Structures are given as structure tokens and as C-alpha cells.
């Protein structure tokens, strides 16, 4: 990626327009997955049911962790923009670490569900739940990898304030993953 953005017909950075367009398409993807979950909600003929198996306190904590990762992400962007290498590394690492913690919560939850007899093949609830939350988890995993790449670039001395747009675009992806979880937490866990 070049350090200086080229002139564009819209006057906007093409990479940023591309990321927003990608996020728009992701709205449709997650919209269809959430719709599928809702359509089949309460139609499983075998258990465990959502009421029996979902752990609201545990998921509330993981939701808090993901919300705090978004705070760390904006603080990372602010640090990169002002050319503060130390704090940009601290906040990028914090964001990636919080993302990894969220994935740890999800891994624990999935493992617990499987031990309780709920797999992707057990019921409509199992299929729609694992596909929806699993797809979201995969997005978080990609986000963590992107953040770790930024961290490596920072330690290589290649993440100065001239690369703030790269961090901003990564941040857009990360915040989108966060807002998707806001919806999933409400629709899947609290309205179950």
C-alpha cells in the first residue's frame, strides 16, 4: 500500500470506500443468518433448548470484553494518528488480546454445549446457533490476525502516522464485528 493516497473521482480514499462497501455486504450476510435463526426459533423437536443451555452471565462478560476492545481500537487509532508508537502498540495489542479473550469465551461455550449434547447436527437451534455465532467468531479471528499484523508492522517501524488510514480501515472492520455481536447478544441470548 502506498503511503500517499491517489486522487479519486469521489475525493475519498478508495480503500476506505471498499471497506465500507464490504461492511455493507456483511450486513446482508449477517442479516440472513440472524433471520434464519429467528425463523427456526422454537421449532426444534429435540433439546437442549436455548432456555436450558444459554449462559447469560458468561455471555454478558464476553460482550463487555468485546465492547472494551472497540474502545482499545479507537485509542490505538488516535495513538497512531498522533505518531505515538508506544501507545499505538499498547492499544493494538490490547485490542487483539481482548479479541482473543472473546474467542476463548466462545470456545468454552461451544465445548460446554457439545458436552451438554448440543451440536450443529442436533437440532434446528443447534444448526442456526452454531452457524451464526461460528461465522461471527471466524470474523473475530480474522480481526485478531489483522491486528497482530499491524502490531508486527509497528515493531518493524512501518506503522507511522502516515499509515493511520490502514489502522482506521482495520478499525472499521473491528467495530463492525462488535456491532454485529451487539445484535446477536440481544436477539440470540436475551430474547431467547
Amino acid at each position, binding site marked *: 500500500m502506498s503511503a500517499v*493516497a491517489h486522487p479519486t473521482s469521489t475525493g475519498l480514499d*478508495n480503500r476506505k470506500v471498499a471497506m465500507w462497501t464490504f*461492511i455493507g455486504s456483511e*450486513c*446482508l450476510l449477517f*442479516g440472513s443468518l440472524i433471520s434464519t435463526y429467528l425463523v427456526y426459533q422454537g421449532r426444534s423437536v429435540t433439546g437442549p433448548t436455548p432456555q436450558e443451555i444459554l449462559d*447469560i452471565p458468561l455471555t454478558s462478560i464476553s460482550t463487555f470484553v468485546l465492547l472494551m476492545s472497540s*474502545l482499545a481500537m479507537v485509542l490505538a487509532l488516535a495513538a497512531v494518528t498522533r505518531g505515538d508508537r508506544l501507545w499505538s502498540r499498547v492499544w493494538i495489542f490490547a485490542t487483539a488480546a481482548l479479541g482473543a479473550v472473546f474467542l476463548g469465551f466462545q470456545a468454552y461455550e461451544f465445548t460446554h454445549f457439545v458436552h451438554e449434547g448440543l451440536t450443529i447436527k442436533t437440532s434446528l437451534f443447534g444448526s442456526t446457533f452454531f452457524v451464526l455465532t461460528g461465522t461471527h467468531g471466524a470474523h473475530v479471528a480474522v480481526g485478531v490476525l489483522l491486528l497482530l499484523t499491524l502490531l508486527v508492522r509497528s515493531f518493524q517501524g512501518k506503522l507511522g502516522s502516515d499509515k493511520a488510514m490502514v489502522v*482506521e480501515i482495520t478499525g472499521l472492520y473491528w467495530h463492525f464485528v462488535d456491532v454485529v455481536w451487539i445484535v446477536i447478544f440481544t436477539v440470540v441470548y436475551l*430474547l431467547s
Partner: protein
Amino acid sequence: MTETNTEHTHTSTGTYVTIAAVLTVITLVEVGVFYVPAFESFLAPVLLTLSAAKFILVVMFYMHLKGDHPLFTVILTVPLLIAFGVAVALLFLFGVFVLGGSAV
């Protein structure tokens, strides 16, 4: 020269922390409401409203849509509305919502 987003450079750390605190409080209220039996009859609208508030706060302040170019708002809003429309249509088609009646 391409336009760069300078809005986030003017947003203070204090604003970001305040937004995080508000998001945390809303999440606590959501979980609290979930456990209060008195809210059971109107749990869905309350939770969906609180969830929408969190969504808007993150998009406006953390994704900087508030001070950014309007094109980005259009790029996000149009697919979001389509997704919402598809969800509502599917819920009607599969009988989860029933016109002039209660949910199945």
C-alpha cells in the same frame, strides 16, 4: 488529493471513554431487564431499543460516521435496511409474524 477523515483526530480520549461507559451501562441495563419479571410483557421492544442505541453509538462515534462523508452513511444504511426488510419479510413468510394476529 483525497479526502481524509479528520473528525476522529478531534474526538478526545474522554469522549471515547464516555461512550464505552455508556455502552457498559446499557449492557448492564439489558441484562438487568432480562432478569426482572415485571418487564416480561415488553421485553422485546425494550431490549431491541437498547441494542439499537448501542449499535448507533458505536457506528457514530467509534466508526466515526458522525463526522465522516455522507456517502459512507449511505453505503452502510442501504444494505442495513435491505437486511432488515428481508428479515421482516422472512418472519412473515414463515409465520413467525402474522398480520392482524399474534405471533405463532
